[in-house]
């Protein structure tokens, strides 16, 4: 009704609405640096008009709702890219340590040990009965074996470190999924009662982003604000108010931890997050490098053995094994290879039995260029291995860089939708302040008019 009192009411409603809007702006400004905060906006709505004397009179303003400005699609893409980025950077972290073991640019690696061993045989070939040169061969053989052992042990240590990461990641994942399940409950109960669950959703998005850094996550919106999380291969992580814990169990065969969910082994089905990166380095790349090293050690060891056995040593006896390597297959050869002889005279350099004959030493030297390691010469096989390691690092580096760029791009896009702008909030602040002031002024004017009405026809003035 177009009465003065109704105008007073409208002014009051208006002041209330602007005050709530001011409060939302204040909240936005307060959270300008809060990670994951999504800016909130208010919407004003006209209240139902009233009919009076065949006319409709506007009846003031009401605050419609407070909305968090978010884009779920961007958030999902951000989570997916985060999974890729974390996977590559975790993989890269391990592989950068692996490549230092093969950094031939600084002389680290096996090339010098392999070459020195064959060089010591070259030296011995000039004077086959010289004991100090024979000792030189044994020393360089021990260095070679030691280099194989060290490299294999370092790789094993890096594999073990990656394994520790796996165990820690599983704990972090479980912690996050149970928090997310808890938030699901709060969000759906707020949604059901029509409240703005924005703050809880912000928190959940933050947690899902953290989870994406660890493991591949697919988010399925199940309505009423609740989400179901699974890995990309469908293993359930969170459904409604329930989270499904992962467990890490040590596999007795490998000594490494396998990841189980609901009794099934999901280790090899994980495709994203730092967990997948650690597993890839631990279960694929490092074992493949160790296997190449094993072939190399076994190839050199076994070939040296068969040649030494064909010759005669300085004492006129038939030669024995030169290196100790696994008798069947090459597995473990790099970590276990040892020099089998300690007496320099037992290098069987002679074929005709005399001390000055170097024919068998020449046969040992010739191994350097023979296809004794999976159809390749030892150095070519090693050079291929170095290429492989370098290439793994280089590929992971470029993948990681491009995923990082995507993550940054998506963060910008999300920010353009959800980020708090101080300038924008300043405008809102002034806008709401002015409207509040105007409404207050209205109530003052109406109050004065009401006084006029009360004092109508009286000499006494009501003020």
């Amino acid at each position, binding site marked *: 009704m177009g009465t003065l009192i109704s105008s007073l009411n409208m002014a009051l409603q208006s002041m209330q609405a602007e005050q709530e809007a001011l409060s939302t702006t204040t909240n936005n400004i307060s959270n300008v640096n809060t990670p994951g905060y999504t800016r909130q906006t208010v919407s004003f709505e006209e209240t139902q008009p009233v009919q009076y004397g065949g006319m409709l009179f506007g009846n003031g303003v009401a605050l419609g709702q407070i909305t968090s400005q978010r884009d779920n699609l961007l958030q999902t893409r951000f989570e997916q890219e985060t999974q890729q980025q974390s996977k590559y950077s975790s993989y890269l972290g391990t592989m950068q340590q692996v490549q230092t073991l093969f950094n031939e640019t600084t002389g680290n690696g096996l*090339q010098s040990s392999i070459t020195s061993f064959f060089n010591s045989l070259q030296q011995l070939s000039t004077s086959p009965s010289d004991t100090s040169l024979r000792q030189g061969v044994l020393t360089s053989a021990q260095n070679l074996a030691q280099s194989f052992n060290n490299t294999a042990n370092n790789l094993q240590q890096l594999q073990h470190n990656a394994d520790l990461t796996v165990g820690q990641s599983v704990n972090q994942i479980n912690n996050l999924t149970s928090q997310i399940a808890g938030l699901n409950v709060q969000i759906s109960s707020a949604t059901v009662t029509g409240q703005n669950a924005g703050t809880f959703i912000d928190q959940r998005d933050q947690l899902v982003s953290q989870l994406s850094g660890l493991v591949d996550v697919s988010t399925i919106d199940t309505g009423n604000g609740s989400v179901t999380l699974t890995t990309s291969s469908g293993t359930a992580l969170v459904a409604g108010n329930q989270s499904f814990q992962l467990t890490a169990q040590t596999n007795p065969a490998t000594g490494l931890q396998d990841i189980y969910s609901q009794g099934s082994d999901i280790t090899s089905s994980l495709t994203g997050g730092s967990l997948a990166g650690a597993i890839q380095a631990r279960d694929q790349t490092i074992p493949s490098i160790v296997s190449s090293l094993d072939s190399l050690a076994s190839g050199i060891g076994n070939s040296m053995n068969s040649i030494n056995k064909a010759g005669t040593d300085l004492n006129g006896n038939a030669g024995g094994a030169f290196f100790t390597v696994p008798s069947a297959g090459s597995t473990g050869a790099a970590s276990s290879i040892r020099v089998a002889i300690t007496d320099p005279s037992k290098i069987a350099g002679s074929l005709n039995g005399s001390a000055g004959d170097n024919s068998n030493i020449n046969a040992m030297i010739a191994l350097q260029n023979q296809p004794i390691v999976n159809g390749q010469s030892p150095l070519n096989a090693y050079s291929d291995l170095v290429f492989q390691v*370098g290439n793994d690092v280089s590929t992971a580096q470029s993948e990681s860089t491009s995923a990082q760029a995507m993550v940054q791009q998506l963060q910008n896009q999300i920010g353009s939708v959800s980020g708090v702008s101080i300038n924008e909030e300043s405008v809102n602040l002034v806008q709401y302040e002015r409207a509040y002031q105007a409404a207050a002024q209205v109530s003052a004017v109406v109050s004065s008019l009401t006084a006029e009405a009360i004092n109508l026809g009286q000499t006494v003035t009501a003020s």
Partner: protein
Amino acid sequence: MSTRINPNTLPDMVAAMQAAQQNAQTAAQQVSTGRRVNNPGDDPAAVAALVINDAQTSQDAQFQTNISDLQSKFQVADSVMNSASQLLTSAISLGTQGATGTLTAANRQSIAAQVAGLQKQLLSLANTSYQGTYIFSGTDVTTQPFSENSSAPSGVTYNGNSAETTVQISQGQSIQTNLPGDQVFANSAGNAFAALNDLTNALNSGTGIAAANTEVQNAFDQLNNQRVFYGNSLNQLQSTESFLSQDTVNLSSQQNSLIGADLTQAISTLSQAQTAEQASISATAQILNLPTLLSYIK
């Protein structure tokens, strides 16, 4: 309404500064180490090639050591044969002197004694050892090659063998490193010991001196034929050594092109990267200092 932009530009600015800093660091590392490639991941193919390159460099150094060892050994052997050759020349002149008809039997016997002395000297030469092993005993290097044996026609017995050894002196190139003593001093085409023994006997008896002297002449020719081997081998070592020196230079230049930095370019990149880094920092500082609308609202 225009597209809303991300109000929070800080992460982008930090990332840009980090990227600029990273570029400057990479460029500085290239300048200070002189290397473009510092890890296998920087250029996998270059580091794989470096493995082979470094191995060849190291092998070349070993071949050069082998060559220098062989040169000393060959020089000793060659000088022994030179002495043996001079010794046979003396024997030939003694033989010629002994063949002169005017000599008395006593004179001839005195000459015979000198020839017998030469044979002893030859024995000592043929038993020369180098660094603890005998040069002329084939591969039986710990056995003295020749010993006196008065019942043998040549007066000595050869105790070595006829085996030869070879040593690699460059990739794919090997060289024979010994001449067995039977081939040098007791060759069927000219046996120095037998010749000297025969000459001694002829001088003592006074018959067949000229024939025995011819025998010594043959042994002398044979010895000098064999000696050519060491001369040729020393030449071969010399030329292989030059080849290896050149190869080492080539390998070093290849290594540089594999992982070395182009310094001119690296320094220019460094200065560009430093400028970019400063620009990025300065831009960030200016953006951070930009006032917001709040500063103007009174």
